[in-house]
Structures are given as structure tokens and as C-alpha cells.
């Protein structure tokens, strides 16, 4: 059932947000600390557990991946409701501040990437996974024959 995947996702998201609030509260912070991150970890753990018990049905995966695939359109809708007028019109300090901080952060990311080579790129990972899938398929064929 597709709804079971959507429900699992909703449960993980809500539980993550609640735990994030509790963490923020216990640290004396007026904000949610890592709610979405905790929810992501919960979802990963839940899927692993379901998989282990053989309960990870096509429907569950469908319900989750439906929302994952709507992610970019949702981001576009988010961009369409920012206060761009205020950001553009609020003067040199704001523009200088925003531009400067982004530049510094980009430079730091580049520096960290230089200092510790990043390993496989996404393209290399997918190529390797395809190779491995072919290898296991070939092995399975071999054992059948």
C-alpha cells in the first residue's frame, strides 16, 4: 500500500521534529535542533529494519519515493515565496554581508575539499554499482547454467 510508505514518512518526520524540539529545549535553545536530520536517520533505520524482516513492500517504497521525487518542485515553490523585494532593497550592508559570507563559505568548502580528497564522485559510484549489479547477475546466470 502506497499510504503505508507515506504514513511511515510522516511518522518519521513528526517524531524527528518532536525529538529536535526536546533536544533544543534540553539545551536551552529557542529552536529545533536537528529535527529533520533526526527524522532522516529514523527513516533510514526504519527501512533497514523493515528490509531485515522482509516487510519492505513495493508500496512502502512508492510512498516514500513519491515525496522524494516531488522535492525539486517543492523547492521551486519555496523560492517563489521568499521576500526577494526586501532582500534586494535593504541596502549595501545586507548585500555586502550576504555576498561576502557566501564567498568565504565557498572558499572554505573548496579548501576542505583540497585538504582531504573527496573519494568517488556520484558518477563513479553509479558506474561501479552498475558493474557490480552486472557481475552478480552474471554470477547468478552462471550458477543456473
Amino acid at each position, binding site marked *: 500500500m502506497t499510504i503505508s510508505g507515506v504514513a511511515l514518512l510522516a511518522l518519521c518526520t513528526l517524531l524527528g521534529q518532536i525529538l529536535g524540539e526536546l533536544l533544543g529545549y534540553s539545551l536551552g535553545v529557542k529552536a529545533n535542533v536537528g529535527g529533520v536530520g533526526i527524522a532522516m536517520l529514523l527513516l533510514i533505520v526504519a527501512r533497514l529494519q523493515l528490509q531485515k524482516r522482509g516487510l519492505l513492500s513495493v508500496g512502502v517504497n512508492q510512498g516514500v519515493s513519491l515525496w522524494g521525487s516531488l*522535492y525539486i518542485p517543492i523547492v521551486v515553490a519555496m523560492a517563489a515565496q521568499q521576500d526577494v523585494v526586501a532582500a534586494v532593497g535593504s541596502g549595501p550592508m545586507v548585500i555586502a554581508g550576504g555576498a561576502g559570507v557566501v564567498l568565504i563559505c565557498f572558499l572554505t568548502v573548496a579548501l576542505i*575539499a583540497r585538504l582531504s580528497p573527496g573519494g568517488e564522485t556520484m558518477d563513479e559510484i553509479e558506474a561501479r554499482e552498475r558493474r557490480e549489479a552486472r557481475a552478480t547477475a552474471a554470477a547468478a546466470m552462471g550458477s543456473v547454467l
Partner: protein
Amino acid sequence: MIARIDHLLVANAFLVAFAIVGLVMWLSNAISTRLTAGRIHGSAIAILIGLAMSFWGGLATGGHKGVADIPILSGIGLMGGAMLRDFAIVATACEVDLDRAKRAGMIGFIALLLGTVIPFLFGAALAWAFGYRDAVSISTIGAGAVTYIVGPVTGAALGATSVVMALSIAIGVVKAMLVMIFTPMVAHLIGLNNPRSAMVFGGMMGTVSGVSAGLAATDRRLVPYGALTATFHTGLGCLLAPSILYFAVRAWVGGI
């Protein structure tokens, strides 16, 4: 008759939002393949169109929520609001490779710390350069350079004036928008093509909206890794900015 259709569209605002955003996505992908031969990602163009729409919406209504202030487009507010955004980000967790995330754990944490302290120091120096001399204003503006949520949370905790609060929010918003726009352009320069650098990027840039949109426009497969660290960034900022970082600023400017 027009009034009746208008009423119908407002009553179905969420569906209108799906239709409009779908149209924007389709148009962006067409522009991407036809006019740029796929060099600029369709999602990047769609996000730029989104920002342009919000500029137009802000001018047309005088409101603060872009096109979401226009009644028939109010569904965009729900579709792109925090609830569905977080819901969709969590859904991308399915694509995370746990081993790979674990291996990037330590460096992600370092990036989170740097991503809080470096922007704060920059913002604080900027506030100083623009003539602010009290620790509360300097810290609030510094916190705004972390993200537009850390700014007002810090300002509220320290009792900053509303002008300073507005400034700190605006710096954070400009940061988020610039991250959305420039990430795909600088991605290959800063080595943003693997899960680990995406986690560093998420921890460093922080703004969940900027990181998630910027990575979406660069390479959709990197989104979950960046989001995983970025989501801790605001919390860490809200923890450090009104406490340790504020005390450091107060010690430096001589306390009020």
C-alpha cells in the same frame, strides 16, 4: 463569471500551485535543453524563475511572501512551506548510503563548527565596520550571517532592536538566495561532486533552503547528503550564537 472562476481557483489553491509549478518545471527543462544544451540544469533555471516570480509578487502585493500573497497563488505558500519542504527532504534520506555518510561524519562535524563560527565572525566584523559598537547588535548581525533563523533567535534571546533583527534576517535571506543561484555555477570549482563534499557543503553553508536548492540544481543525487548536515547547522547556530559567541564578542568590545 470571472468572479466565480476566481473563487473556484482560490478554493483549489493547492491544485493551482501544482499546475503552476509543473509548468515552471517544464518550461525550465525546455530552456535548459534547447537554449543552453543542458549546461545549466533545469532545476537551477526553475529556482531562478521562482525567485523572479517572488520578486514580482512582492512588488505587486507589497507583502513579504512573494507570490504566496496573491490569493489564487496562495497554494504555493503551502506547497513550498516548511511542512512539505521538511517532509520531502526526509523522503530523500532513502537515497543516503549509510557507510558513505559515516565515513564523512567527522569532517561533516568540523564543517558544521566552521560553518557557524566563520560566518558569525564575518558578520560581526561587518557590523563593526558599519558602526555598531554594542555586543548585542554585533552578535545579532553576526548570527544573521549564519542563517536567517539563527539571526532572529539570537536577537530575541539577547534583546536586540527590531532594526538590527530585520538586518540580520535580511543578510541570512540574501545568503540563502546567493547559495541557491551560485552553487551550480561554482560546483566544479569547489569539488562538489561526491557525497563527502556535499556533507561538508551542507555543514558549511547551513541554510537548509539554500543548500537543498543549490544542490538540487547541481546534482539531485547530492541533496540528501547536504541536507543531512545542513539540518544540524541552524540548531548549532542557535546554541552557540547567543551563548559562547556572544560572550566572546562582549569580552572583545568591553561589555554593556
